[in-house]
């Protein structure tokens, strides 16, 4: 972070001069290794209040017809602002949209939006999900009317734009302001490029060279996209979506889609415009042996009479290693963008210096208690699934648990409980999502330990258990990083990190009593 320059914002001159001299973290900074952004900031100068308003709107289900879906429903931070684990994203009434939700970050560098690039300005994009009957099924005019009738929005518009008027321009620009602040540029790759004390391993460096050589004509530059529309040879029989053609009506554009960037792929599965490929291995297999010929297939994928890109197993593994260096946890876990993210620590106001262990957070509300009882039930199922090495059960219980954790009625909590929950949920939700995103036991185990740890924090603080709970620790779990789990009996019931190949290393580290 430190090496980035704030020139982009400050460069916009007089208007922002006062802003730049202020000693606050800049709202938008051009990372030193990135090109100049394409968004015209002069037409929509970012302000702290504008960004805050945009964030409110982004996470407000008021934007949908039946008040159930927000932008954040399909664009989740922990999934790189895609919709976790969905091939075609789900909208209102659970209707499927035509395409896979797109990751939202580094939008300031995009020139066309949507898989087919039908929208030529970021400010205009929100009209698409709003107007689409399978997404939010609402019109902007009605949304504006709803916002005007609330108590909380007019003052927020005043803070952001100087008067309480709520209109099209202000609404769209506030949403853009928030989305523009979503910059992902702190991956290991970026740090290596900026000489911030990170060096890539040999395999990663070779993977980078391979990507530059074999993929770099399309996945170009620091953003790993040339912002063009191309046909990368996906089998057409699976889908009749003609992509860019729907916009331009030019035959040469049939089956062309926007070349996506390659950042944060670890969390944005499934891949491609319709989410047809589940893993990065499958993506590489597609390029090496799955490319289908067609009149609009990109010529780069049909060279010297060969379809696709020649890749050996060794090259594939190096490319995979490199792609992992483009994951940016700093971004994916950044509170600034999270729905219930608390402000950065120093700005937490009354909550900033709280010693949580000294606050009584006991939860008494019966509705909430029932919700958390269910959470504990699903946790038990998840644990049993891991012991039996039944990935499907683990996945299903995690998704059920996540659903409750996510939707638990926070308005029933006290202010302190809410703040604490937000803090814990940030990690607990993250790991639960990961356990639920696949049926692969190995991946589930990677996240189960942290999941248990944070569930333990919650149980303890909220006093959720009626009977004693035992908290186990196995130092050998998760590549010797250690892993936790919770049981209702002193017996560890086997070891969820090793399952059938039980490595009896669990020790009871704590007992939580009623």
């Amino acid at each position, binding site marked *: 972070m430190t090496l980035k320059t704030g020139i982009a914002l400050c460069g916009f001159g007089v*208007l922002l001069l006062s802003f730049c001299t*202020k000693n606050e973290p800049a709202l938008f900074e051009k990372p030193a290794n990135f090109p100049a952004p394409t968004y015209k900031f002069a037409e929509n100068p970012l302000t702290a209040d504008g960004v805050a308003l945009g964030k409110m709107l982004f996470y407000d289900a008021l934007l949908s017809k039946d008040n159930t879906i927000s932008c954040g429903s399909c664009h989740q931070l922990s999934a790189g602002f895609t919709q976790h684990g969905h091939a075609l994203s789900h909208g209102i009434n659970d209707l499927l949209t035509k395409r896979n939700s797109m990751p939202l970050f580094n939008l300031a560098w995009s020139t066309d939006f949507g898989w087919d690039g039908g929208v030529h300005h970021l400010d*205009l994009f929100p009209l698409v999900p709003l107007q689409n009957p399978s997404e939010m099924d609402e*019109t902007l005019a009605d*949304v504006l009317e709803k916002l005007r009738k609330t108590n909380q929005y007019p003052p927020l518009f005043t803070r952001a734009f100087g008067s309480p008027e709520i209109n099209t321009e202000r609404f769209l620009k506030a949403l853009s302001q928030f989305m523009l602040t979503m910059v992902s540029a702190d991956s290991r790759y970026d740090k290596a490029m900026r000489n911030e004390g990170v060096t890539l391993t040999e395999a990663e460096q070779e993977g980078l060279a391979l990507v530059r050589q074999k993929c770099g004509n399309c996945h170009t530059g620091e953003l790993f996209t040339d912002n063009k529309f191309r046909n990368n040879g996906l089998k057409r029989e699976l889908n009749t979506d003609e992509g860019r053609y729907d916009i331009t009506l030019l035959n040469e554009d049939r089956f062309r889609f926007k070349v996506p960037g390659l950042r944060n792929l670890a969390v944005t599965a499934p891949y491609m415009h319709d989410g047809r490929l589940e893993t990065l291995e499958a993506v590489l297999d597609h390029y090496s042996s799955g490319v289908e010929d067609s009149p609009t297939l990109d010529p780069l994928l049909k060279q010297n009479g060969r379809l696709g890109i020649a890749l050996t197993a060794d090259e594939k593994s190096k490319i995979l290693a490199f792609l992992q260096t483009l994951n940016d946890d700093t971004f994916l876990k950044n509170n600034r963008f999270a729905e219930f993210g608390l402000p950065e620590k120093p700005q937490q106001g009354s909550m900033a210096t709280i010693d949580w262990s000294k606050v009584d957070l006991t939860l008494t509300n019966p509705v909430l208690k029932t919700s958390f009882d269910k959470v504990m039930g699903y946790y038990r199922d998840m644990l049993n699934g891991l012991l039996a090495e039944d990935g499907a059960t683990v996945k299903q219980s995690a998704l059920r648990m996540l659903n409750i954790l996510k939707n638990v009625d926070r308005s029933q909590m006290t202010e302190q409980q809410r703040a604490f929950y937000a803090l814990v949920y940030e990690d607990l939700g993250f790991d639960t999502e990961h356990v639920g995103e696949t049926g692969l036991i190995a991946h589930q185990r990677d996240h189960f330990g942290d999941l248990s740890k944070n569930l333990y924090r919650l149980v303890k603080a909220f006093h959720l258990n009626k009977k004693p709970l035992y908290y186990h620790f196995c130092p050998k779990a998760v590549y010797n990083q250690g892993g936790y789990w919770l049981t209702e009996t002193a017996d560890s019931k086997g070891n969820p990190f090793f399952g059938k190949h039980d490595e009896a290393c669990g020790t009871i580290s704590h007992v939580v009593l009623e």
Partner: protein
Amino acid sequence: MHKTSYNHNPMKTILLFVASILVAMNTVAQKTGSVEIQFDNVVGNQDLVLKDKTYTNANGDEFAVSLFQYYVSNFRLTRKDGSEYVVPQDESYFLIREQRPETQRIVLKNIPKGTYVGVSFVIGVDSLRSASDVSRRQGCLDVGGEGKDMYWAWNSGYIFVKMEGRSPQVPMTGNRKDLVFMYHIGLFGGMGDKKTLNNIKAANLSFGADKVRVKTDDITRIGIKTDASKLLNGSTNVSIAANPSVMGGPYSKHIADNYATMFSYDGLKKELPAGKGAGVVGMNE
């Protein structure tokens, strides 16, 4: 004060200041009047009556119209010597709706005094404005307001001309449940080198033998007829059976070529009786 609020935007203040000087100079230097244009929507030589009246197109299809509306913009008035007065762009966008009589009367203000022989305008919204920042899409161009039903979100751009109705020729195929036809025609040509269809058309109307005189501080009234049947008749006679619904597709080009001819000059007009035409929906509402 680190907030850049719109009210305290110094550039804007300067621009407003310059603009007001220009306006002031204009009124001092020139004597101006207004031109009111009354749009009369018709079908061939009959008046357009929504829903209840049935018409026949050149292809022989029967149809009734339930909705008819369109943008007209970028007005210019031509003098005898061929020179033109160009109405300032921000005051030159109008959305005419058959359902709302008050929109069928538009007023072009601050027209220099003199005699004019013709008027020209864009059918639809010019490509520059179609591609402009949201701050420049006010009034009838507000996609969250007056223009909400005249905009495509997925292929960013305005719908220029929209006509819907019913016809017994509409085939009940696919998941169609009604005999409804829809012609939503737009597409401004795309951004830069990213070309799409361009269905923007221009109308050039001569006032013929009429002398259209604009007098100082007075209103001169003229009429323009808009023939809705021209969407279906012209260089391509549209079969409603074959093309019951045309939106962003390639066929839209034919309908746009047709509607390029739907406007005609309809003579000098008198002030409309009270009740018909209470206000104008333009950019600066």
